[in-house]
């Protein structure tokens, strides 16, 4: 039905989006690659020439590289574990018949809409502050010594804050997936005398497999680059320097562009590995 005329019109209509995104992808990427092979210190001499793979080697061998990789893995892994585990439980709970389901849904989804700087600050000051935070009162109430959350348990604190932000996302997606589950299948299993736990393990959980994968992949891409939550709370101190934050410091704080750019290339490669898996799933969906 598509004529030659409409084809060229279609191409014309797609052009702005394609050209803009192509530019957005290629121009900064090329520049990052270019800088990554240079010794470039804008405040201390500017462009000091080509250095080959020096920056790549230096970035990986610097003493803060492996700790930052570990920190990144702990935060991403911790948040994924918490959000998927509690997300499944919450989704199952919210799917049950109850009064006020709409209001409950609205309350659960709310943290996702809070801007990262606000949630980080609210948690930092009003909950985790060792003097005035709500947790300090709670600890004292039970006769315990208040915890200095962001210095003594810095990674745990960040995982808590970020998990709180992302749990709604996981829950909402898993809930959507559960609702598409054929309830007749569950009823049949129930009539055959399968206990609730088995019905969950053999019917609900396998049905959720794909949604869980999607949640993990999308969250990983966003979590790899969390920034505001660290910027506002610890500023990268107390072992909370992620790979993203390390690159940010190299580029904007120590103004070592070459080194930061090499780090940026590593971050891009890392994100692409995750992205390939996500695209496979989304791509399959397009055929259906």
């Amino acid at each position: 039905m598509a004529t030659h005329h409409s084809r060229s019109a279609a191409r014309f209509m797609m052009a702005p989006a394609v050209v803009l995104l192509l530019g957005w992808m290629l121009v900064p990427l090329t520049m990052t690659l270019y800088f990554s092979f240079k010794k470039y210190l804008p405040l201390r001499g500017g462009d000091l020439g080509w250095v080959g793979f020096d920056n790549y080697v230096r970035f990986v061998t610097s003493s803060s590289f492996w700790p930052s990789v570990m920190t990144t893995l702990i935060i991403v892994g911790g948040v994924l574990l918490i959000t998927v585990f509690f997300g499944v439980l919450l989704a199952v709970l919210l799917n049950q018949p109850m009064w006020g389901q709409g209001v409950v849904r609205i309350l659960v989804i709310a943290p996702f809409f809070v801007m990262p700087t606000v949630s980080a600050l609210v948690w930092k000051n009003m909950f985790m502050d060792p003097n005035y935070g709500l947790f300090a009162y709670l600890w004292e109430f039970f006769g315990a010594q208040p915890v200095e959350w962001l210095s003594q348990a810095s990674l745990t604190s960040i995982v808590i804050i970020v998990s709180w932000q992302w749990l709604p996302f996981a829950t909402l997606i898993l809930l959507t997936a559960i609702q598409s589950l054929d309830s007749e299948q569950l009823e049949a299993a129930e009539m055959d005398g399968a206990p609730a736990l088995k019905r969950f393990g053999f019917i609900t959980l396998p049905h959720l497999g794909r949604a869980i994968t999607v949640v993990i992949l999308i969250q990983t891409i966003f979590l790899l680059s969390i920034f505001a939550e660290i910027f506002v709370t610890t500023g990268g101190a107390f072992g909370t320097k992620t790979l993203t934050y390390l690159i940010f410091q190299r580029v904007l704080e120590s103004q070592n562009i070459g080194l930061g750019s090499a780090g940026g290339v590593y971050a891009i490669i890392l994100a692409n590995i995750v992205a390939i898996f996500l695209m496979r799933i989304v791509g399959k969906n397009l055929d259906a």
Partner: protein
Amino acid sequence: MARSVTKQRKIINTAAAWAVSLLIFFPILWTILTSFKTEAQAIADPPVFLAFNWTLENYAVVMERSNYGRFLWNSIIIAGGSTLLGILIAVPAAWSMAFVPSRRTKDILLWMLSTKMLPAVGVLYPIYLLCIKFGVLDSKIALVFILMLINLPIIVWMLYTYFKEIPGEILEAARMDGASLKEEVLYVLTPMAIPGIASTILLNVILAWNEAFWTLNLTAAKAAPLTAFIASYSSPEGLFYAKLSAASTMAIAPILILGWFSQKQLVSGLTFGAVK
């Protein structure tokens, strides 16, 4: 839903769900409550929950700080501008991909998605440098443009998903009846596409409003939106909890309300149609 549920089970479900959801919502509730307290009450020991003298003083103070209005205005321009610009560019693209698909449509869609996966920090310096070069560092126009580009893949995808659900037969029928391309777009497609476009706008305003990497790194005094305004409260040392809460409440309230309206679209929008 033919399953019969005992009343007792429903009561237990309701109680459990409400308890959990209130726990999750509590930090927001606590922020809103604190914003109506005096600074002394905000750090009272033991904490007061509801029995305090409600006051609007904090809001007045935050409003008075002359620059609050500007942060808010910057947020509105940046979030609104980037979304509208994105919609203008994405509607024709999504329209043509949905109604005149070619062999490459799928590849183009996936490639667009892949640009979304580019970690911002990887290209921070080039963008920073380009902003300086074009003299748009700390300007709203730069952020409108950047946030538009960041969210463009999501906008195209969401619109594409919606447009695809418009049955092609309707177009054929309109053409049979002698509708011109202009009439076809104006009277047949647009009315059917408006709900999809509306929810796309909603979700993208939310995403742009809350974006906190580029807005923190590319702005200073002039173009800083609410994300940066709030970040400047980084260490209020207990004495300003009530004001911090008031500012936070004002920063998140509009988006919270928009968000509650768009929660259904959120799933298909953010999973790129992989979960429906």
